[in-house]
């Protein structure tokens, strides 16, 4: 009736061959099977964005994706952003601009900003706010998150130029 389904999924550059129940959500695969607990479960109703990961390069709420749907896909979580011990520029921006307080929304928020800057390297403040409209922060009032995104955008443009 609900037999296990074989899937192949690449997470943070590492490929996994797994058998999963069809009802297993991607966020639970990441947290409970792969022990990547940086991706958080917040509202669990597709609104708050704490569970945001990159799925084939685009931001997605992993609480609203079945793991079987991600078969053959590439996933990047917050754990996959740093390179050789160097923070991703967006992570660095959150550090430098104090873009977090409690930190619960932060992994999803950072992934959404990464997605935004991949598509739009030089966003306006309004575009940043629209870009993180699927991520709720109940601490910061968003002001420092916007600054963190601006910091990262400047840094990433500087690096690539």
């Amino acid at each position: 009736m609900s037999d296990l389904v074989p899937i192949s999924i690449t997470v943070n550059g590492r490929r996994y061959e797994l058998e999963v129940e069809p009802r297993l959500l991607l966020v639970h695969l990441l947290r409970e099977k792969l022990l990547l607990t940086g991706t958080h479960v917040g509202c669990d109703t597709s609104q708050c964005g704490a569970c945001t990961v990159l799925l084939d390069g685009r931001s997605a709420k992993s609480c609203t994706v079945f793991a079987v749907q991600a078969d053959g896909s590439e996933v990047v979580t917050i754990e996959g952003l740093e390179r050789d011990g160097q923070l991703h520029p967006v992570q660095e921006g959150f550090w430098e601009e104090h873009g977090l307080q409690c930190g619960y929304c932060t992994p999803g928020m950072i992934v959404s900003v990464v997605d935004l800057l991949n598509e739009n390297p030089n966003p306006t403040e309004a575009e940043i706010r629209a870009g993180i409209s699927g991520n709720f922060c109940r601490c910061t009032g968003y002001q420092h998150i916007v600054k963190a995104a601006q910091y990262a955008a400047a840094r990433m443009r500087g690096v690539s130029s």
Partner: protein
Amino acid sequence: MIPTKFAYRRAASIDEAIRLLQESGGEAKLLAGGHSLIPLMKLRLSEPALLIDIGRIPDLRGIRERDGLIEIGATTTHHELATSELLRRLAPVVSEAAAEIGDPQVRHRGTIGGSLAHADPAADLPAVMVAIDAEIHLKGPNGWRTVPAESFFQDLFTVDMQPDEVLAAVKFRPVWHAAYAKLHQRASHYAIVGVCAALAIENGTIRSARVAVTGASTHAQRLPNVEERLVGRQPTQAVIDEAASVAGDTLEDVNSDIHASEEYRRAMVKVFTRRALERAVARA
């Protein structure tokens, strides 16, 4: 929140999906982006025994222009609609409305077919499809069937679609004098009220007008008394104001919930009808 157990099959073609639907005896649901279905399954409001994944059927995806019609495959995402060069050129209202759905993550996964088949009373695209007079193309065991969007949406979460049919595509003619205006619910970004106006303006006269509302009532529907006050007249501010002043008066069941009372929704239907008409006219 964990859904009840179900079996999972991935369909390689529309016909395979139809066959699996038939075999399931009404116990299956189609899955593409899952952004309407998965939340319902997590709340156990929907407990299908089988999910048929149509998300990888190539024929169901993409935006094309063919024989003067724009054709959008059912599993095309809202993000693809919002960023489509073809739509921005030939039917910008569809792009604009799609860009206002949910948030970036939702738009990356949610699909037009899912939104239309699910028919949430506060979804955006149903109103747009009704206003631009889109055709809904369905395929079932007996072949293809076409339903005008206006009669596709029948009631709360209720559409003209059989359990063994697949919503494959929507088709519509290019449309320029059209706009969508929406009052957002701030967390979900669903429409508390959304109005789409599609006009044909020739030689300074409104030759035809279709105005549809979502969010206000059980399902997306036209506002005939607004349309009557537009056709044959010049698109002046006075004409727009007069037409918008009666918007929603024909609606019998107006929603009242934690987001907005009936009285507030009725007031906002007029406001957002006016804004949609102003933007549609400005797009001359």
